[in-house]
């Protein structure tokens, strides 16, 4: 069974069904959307069950020629880097649909749900695309539903926020399209035929100058989507104007598109260019870590605080990928999942607080812990995870990244540590500002902000996942190992790193030892 194609088609078909439902059928729409999102979750679990963790290359590939003359095909599969992202996407979208159903917009709720499912299809396609053109197709495809969600259901400044989002993204992505076209055509000299399959392109040697230019083209698109400092200008407007359910999806899942592209496409296809861009990108990531933390520290609203903290966290992930180190890359993959879960949980808490108190301003709230003790516990838990307290899930990821970075460039690790410290400052500011101190902004000590059973349906699974990763991080890291080793190996060779650091070579050496006696 072509499970991966089915996985992409389920949300797509659900979206179409929802689009053709009459606007009155809100009950039916809820049922359809929930069914669709749960079916997608089930399909992703099937993909996970069939996943062979020893294989480094793309597996369960569904290949269908689309435009052979232009080397374009429907080619989807899964590898160690994408397998958890698929599960993260389907899980977060199930929770997102539940949230959307709980507070379905009065105006055209069926279309709202339809667009959410369309976005899910786009993201799942992006995380599974094995063909660069298909990768681009999904990269742009997901933009439309998100933009329409912001335009139609966003805050007061939604129109300009949506336009900023689209234009920012398109500047990067259309230059990426040119880079994709150029890659395919330059590679044609080597492979003899036009092909945009990533697994074909990985084998193509580019000269250093070309690889640097092409990688730079891809990097611009990735940097804007991530967003990497200084390309984050769209983030505060979009995160604060989007409906909060959409903000959750953007922060938890869509923000992974850029870092995934970097590790899955950028580094493996253009290892020759990594040497020239390593230090500049690492510096941008480091600035992002510090700058995001500072902005989060002074952010006026909870939503912006979590948004800016994403800039810092994603800076960490970029740093983990760009230093080209096995351990750091594995940490980066783990941290993608961690950040997805923690950011989703943090925004759900913002949503609950905003619903109970009518405001997202940190300074207008305070002392809610007394009236909302259950929420306070959950909030504290999420806070600890977000600031990467030892013993939390994010701690493991950051530890991996910092360890790997320290091995390669100790000074970067020192600077990045500052970001870890600042995370404690801004996350505790948000928790203390809203939960502790004298009650503010509420009448009955904050009972209205208490977590209800309906909120728990969304929040508890996220917290359970955090506990799982904190207790047993190996279960996440281990299936990603083979693919991340393979992804960074060409760049490690190009950078002339010692052979014992290169995972693929080491495995081959140990295989030799096994055979020798």
């Amino acid at each position, binding site marked *: 069974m072509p499970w991966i194609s089915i996985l992409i088609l389920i949300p797509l078909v659900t979206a179409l069904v929802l689009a053709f439902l009459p606007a009155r059928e809100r009950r039916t729409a809820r049922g359809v959307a929930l069914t669709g999102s749960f079916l997608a979750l089930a399909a992703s679990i099937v993909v996970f069950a069939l996943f062979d963790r020893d294989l480094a290359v793309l597996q369960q590939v569904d290949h269908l020629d689309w435009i052979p003359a232009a080397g374009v095909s429907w080619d989807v599969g899964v590898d160690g880097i994408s397998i958890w992202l698929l599960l993260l996407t389907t899980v977060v979208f199930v929770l997102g649909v539940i949230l959307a159903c709980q507070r379905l917009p009065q105006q055209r709720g069926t279309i709202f749900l339809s667009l959410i499912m369309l976005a899910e299809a786009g993201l799942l396609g992006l995380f599974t695309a094995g063909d660069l053109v298909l990768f681009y197709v999904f990269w*742009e495809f997901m933009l439309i539903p998100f933009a329409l969600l912001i*335009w139609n259901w966003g805050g007061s400044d939604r129109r300009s926020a949506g336009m900023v989002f689209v234009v920012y993204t398109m500047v990067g992505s259309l230059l990426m399209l040119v880079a994709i076209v150029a890659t395919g*055509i330059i590679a044609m000299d080597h492979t003899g035929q036009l092909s945009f399959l990533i697994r074909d392109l990985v084998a193509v040697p580019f000269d250093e100058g070309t690889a640097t230019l092409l990688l730079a083209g891809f990097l611009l698109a990735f940097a804007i989507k991530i967003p990497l400092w200084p390309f984050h200008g769209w983030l505060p407007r979009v995160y604060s104007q989007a409906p909060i359910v959409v903000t959750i999806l953007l922060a938890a899942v869509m923000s992974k598109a850029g870092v995934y592209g970097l590790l899955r496409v950028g580094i493996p296809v253009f290892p020759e260019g990594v040497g020239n861009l390593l230090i500049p990108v690492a510096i941008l990531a480091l600035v992002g870590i510090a700058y995001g933390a500072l902005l989060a520290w002074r952010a006026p609203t909870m939503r912006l605080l979590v948004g800016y903290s994403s800039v810092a966290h994603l800076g960490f992930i970029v740093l983990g990928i760009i230093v080209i180190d096995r351990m750091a890359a594995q940490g980066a993959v783990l941290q993608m999942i961690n950040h997805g879960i923690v950011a989703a949980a943090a925004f759900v808490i913002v949503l609950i607080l905003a619903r109970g108190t009518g405001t997202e301003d940190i300074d207008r709230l305070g002392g809610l812990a007394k009236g909302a003790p259950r929420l306070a516990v959950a909030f504290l838990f999420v806070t600890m995870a977000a600031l990467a307290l030892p013993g939390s899930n994010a701690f493991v990821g950051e530890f991996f990244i910092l360890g790997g970075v320290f091995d390669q460039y100790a000074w970067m690790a020192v600077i990045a540590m500052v970001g870890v410290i600042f995370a404690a400052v801004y996350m505790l500011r948000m928790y203390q500002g809203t939960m502790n101190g004298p009650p503010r902004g509420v009448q009955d000590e904050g009972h209205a902000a208490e977590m209800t059973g309906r909120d728990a349906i969304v929040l508890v699974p996220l917290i359970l996942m955090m506990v799982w990763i904190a207790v047993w991080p190996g279960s996440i890291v281990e299936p990603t190992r083979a693919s991340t080793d393979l992804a960074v190996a060409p760049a490690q060779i190009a950078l002339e790193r010692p052979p014992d650091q290169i995972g693929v070579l080491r495995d081959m050496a140990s295989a030799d030892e096994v055979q020798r006696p």
Partner: protein
Amino acid sequence: MNAGAALTLYVMSAATVLALVLAVVPLPAAWRRLPEWVGCIGIVATLAIAVVQWGDRQVAFAGELHIDRFSLLLTWIILPAALAVILFSWGEPAAAGRRAEFVGLVLAAATGMMLTVMSGDLITLFIGIELLSVALYVLCAIEVARARSLESGIKYLITGSIGTAILIYGFALLYGVTGTTSLDGVTARLATIDGMASDPLLIAAIVLIVVALGFKASAVPFHMWTPDVYQGAPTPVTAFMGTGTKAAAMGAFLLLFTGATQQVSGDWRALIGALAVVTMVVGNVGALMQQNVKRMLAWSSIAQAGYLLIGVAVGTTAGAEALIYYLFAYVAMTLAAFAIVILREREVESGDTLGAFTGFGRARPWAGVVMTITLLGLAGFPPLAGFIGKFLLFGSAVDAGMSWLAIVGALASVVSVVYYLRVVIVMWSQAPDGQRTARRVRVPASVAAVAVAGAAAIIALAIWAQPMLDLCADAARALTIP
């Protein structure tokens, strides 16, 4: 001599004459739709012949006409556009008194477009362009009671005549250099004479021809007439100018450059490339400023001419293939977009302004969906046909070592996203209370059919891109291999 090969032109000419005769014959009221039927049947019959004729080159009238895969494929673009225009004006109140003239002129213009792309000789090419231009001058001014329509006709007449004069001058110089008016003869002469490439006379001829065709294709800096003429002309005519004329002009570009003067491509590649760059930049930035949707579409058609010119500038068959594919996509998208504009125009006063589209998508969801698909396609969003066309055009540019064209094209596309999506946003936003009571006329089925067919074509061209590209590749090869 194989005069039978030009059967398509005979049928079209007969339908044209019949329609024009009907203009002077008093028709009984029950037969008042007869001219439209004549037009539709004529076009469908011609299209059927063009499909059956698909095959290797047939020559008619001693090489004056080339009926080959290239000209037939472009005929497949021109005829549906003409059919759509007749369907647009089906029962339109404004054209009520002049139905037969309208249909006859549309058929005449379409015949001119077909003649242009079928020509195997500079003279035939010129006659084709003249025929389509003259018919369109009158069509622009056909709403004689409306000042803007007349103004549009006059403006188009004046600028069009200048373009024609320059074109014939260029042809004269080309004849002076090569001593022949046959396109095949030009190719053969250029191949045999050494040192021809830097001949100033030849370069002058090329520059003049590029300028003249630039007028017809509304490429910058010869685009000044386009926004005014497009806005003033009756909307169905505007749609025809945006699609049919563009296809014919691009066909002429391909015939003369990628085809006939391929040998001296070093002389014109950079020139047409520069034209493409300026057209993409100015067209997109100009569209950004517009508050009138028809005017915006006029500017967008300028910008789209810039993308199309990439396919000429690269001078390769891959470029021609990409150009023809993009022409199909562009014509489908433009016709669908104009269909929606026509619907809105019939529904409210000054329905072509951006403000008039507020809430249109909510009022008529199917029209909103069609317009959204169309505008996303024009902006080049994947996986729609507009994206595949741009992808192929950019690919041909990179392949030909002209990556700068692709980069400018990509950046210009970013600008285009803003004005295309602005219409989408406006369409799906809440209508102000006053407009909700605007009169709602019954949707004319013919216009709706074109809109839906256009949107379906945008998706179908993307799904079945490969078979379509095979056809385009055959057509592009027919340009260089007789």
